[in-house]
């Protein structure tokens, strides 16, 4: 199936953010999608679009199917019904073989081989890991790796073994590996889990920069929306077995959040105009 020039087909998506991107087709289109895993329906009726150039959270309780949604987007889990388009293509199929245009940071990024590889080598795999046949590493590839490491503030520990890094450092290496191929979409599965507040802040700032400076569309699975509020444009929420999308203003809603987390949530606006939510 051939894909027309993306700029020529722009369906009028309700782009709520990302000014200037209004003409771009959505990064992600879900049309009445449902997923079955192990004989069980995980979620259904997923119909939404995610604008190009936005930062979107995927939220829901444990086991609601957030990781499953990411795997559907990556083409690792098939859908039971419906239609999915990722950057204009079916999941797992892309303009090039190897899908250089999507970066992925999995949940629990714990490389089993952490002892046998340096952080720098792990990042390099994001660039060359899907290429067959032996070849020398080019100067340009080295520079790309150095840039990706610098972008996540990982230059200092780039030559250490992955097994010797802290959780926050590993998370940075995983992000460097995901962005080294200069993807248009980056998907992260709970990147903030098990990080201390300072590391959370720094990773969120980094995602914000990726989005603002390079126009990368970002999808991030999160437990806690608070640390992400400063960069978010909207969220996909998995509620009662269905997948919905809403802009941020729609998601930061006490009733919805209380329903979603199964506990009373209060949304507080500080005098400075910042939002945060807490369980009461």
């Amino acid at each position, binding site marked *: 199936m051939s894909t027309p020039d993306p700029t020529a087909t722009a369906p009028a998506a309700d782009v709520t953010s990302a000014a200037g991107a209004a003409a771009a087709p959505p990064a992600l289109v879900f049309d009445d999608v449902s997923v079955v895993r192990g004989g069980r329906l995980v979620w259904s009726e997923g119909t939404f679009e995610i604008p190009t150039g936005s930062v979107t959270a995927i939220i829901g309780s444990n086991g609601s199917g957030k990781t499953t949604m990411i795997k559907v987007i990556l*083409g690792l889990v098939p859908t039971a019904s419906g239609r999915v388009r990722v950057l204009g293509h079916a999941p*797992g199929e892309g303009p090039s073989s190897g899908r*250089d245009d999507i970066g992925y940071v999995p949940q629990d990024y714990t490389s*089993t081989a952490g002892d046998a590889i340096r952080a*720098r080598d792990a990042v390099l*795999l994001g660039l060359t890991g*899907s290429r067959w046949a032996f070849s020398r590493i080019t100067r340009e590839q080295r520079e790309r790796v*150095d840039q990706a490491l610098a972008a996540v503030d990982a230059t200092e520990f*780039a*030559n250490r073994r992955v097994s010797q890094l802290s959780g926050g450092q590993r998370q940075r290496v995983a992000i460097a590996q995901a962005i080294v191929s200069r993807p248009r979409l980056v998907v992260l599965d709970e990147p903030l889990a098990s990080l201390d507040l300072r590391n959370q802040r720094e990773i969120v700032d980094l995602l914000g920069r990726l989005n603002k400076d390079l126009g990368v569309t970002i999808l991030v699975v999160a437990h806690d929306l608070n640390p992400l509020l400063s960069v978010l444009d909207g969220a996909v929420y998995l509620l009662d077995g269905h997948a919905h999308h809403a802009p941020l203003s729609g998601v930061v809603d006490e009733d919805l959040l209380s329903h979603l987390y199964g506990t009373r949530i209060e949304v507080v606006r500080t005098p400075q105009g910042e939002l945060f939510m807490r369980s009461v």
Partner: protein
Amino acid sequence: MRTVDLVTYQDNWWEILTSDFMRNALLGGTIVALAAGLIGYFVIVRNTAFASHALAHIGLPGATGAVLIGIPVSLGLGIFAVGGALVIGALGKKAADREVATGTVLAMATGLGLYFNSLATKSSSTMTNVLFGNLLAITNDQLVVFAIMLVALAAAVALIYRPLLFASVDSEVAEARGVPVRTLSVVFMALLGLVITMAVQVVGTLLLFALVVTPAATGIQLTPRPRRAMAVSAAISLVSVWAGLAFSAMLNLPPSFVVVTIACLVWFVVWLSARASHRAGGAIVGAPTRATAEHPVHA
């Protein structure tokens, strides 16, 4: 009371070392050491050390069964080792979690090997050779087969090196990037089966671990760079085989014993010094030297 001479010095050792059957042993050992170096790094990175140990045992009934039906021992060994490898590979990436199943199959295979051996009257030397290896029995025909296997292995590793590394280190990300992770797993296991078929003939099923896995573990302790670790591991295997043959000629010891002892000693020394420097607060042995942004260290 009778004293046992643990070692006897043989002053004609140079003659022994330069004889024809020694030449085959040296060549065969060299080929196997190189093959072990190529695959050992991946065995550790992919968490398949136990599976490789099991495969060596699964080869045993193949070897003794071969004697029974009158086909070459190496062929029977190869069919069982590679066949077993393919089954383990097809079972998928959770192979490391299948220790109980693997251990059970291993015991069953060893028992079956013993049974086949008892059926054939002349095969007890085969049994000993397969269990403990016999470098000195390597024939010219075997050398040719070994050489072909090594070339095939090197070509395959060169072709799949990066995707295999990616799939081994970050299988989920690799899969998302279109790397055929499952196929690579089966291909890797088939290659491992080949190396095991060769290595069993050098050090035997019982000692194989020390030639295929231990040098790679040492290499990884010494350097975190994949290709260097492979080179170091091949070098340790080579030195073990060569020095093993030389010492066995000098002191009239079984070659497998000396080969394995050297490989294990090297590992032990590296492990001890890594611990010592770690205790002293220094960097782990072989930890990368500090690189500057201008002069990063690359693999």
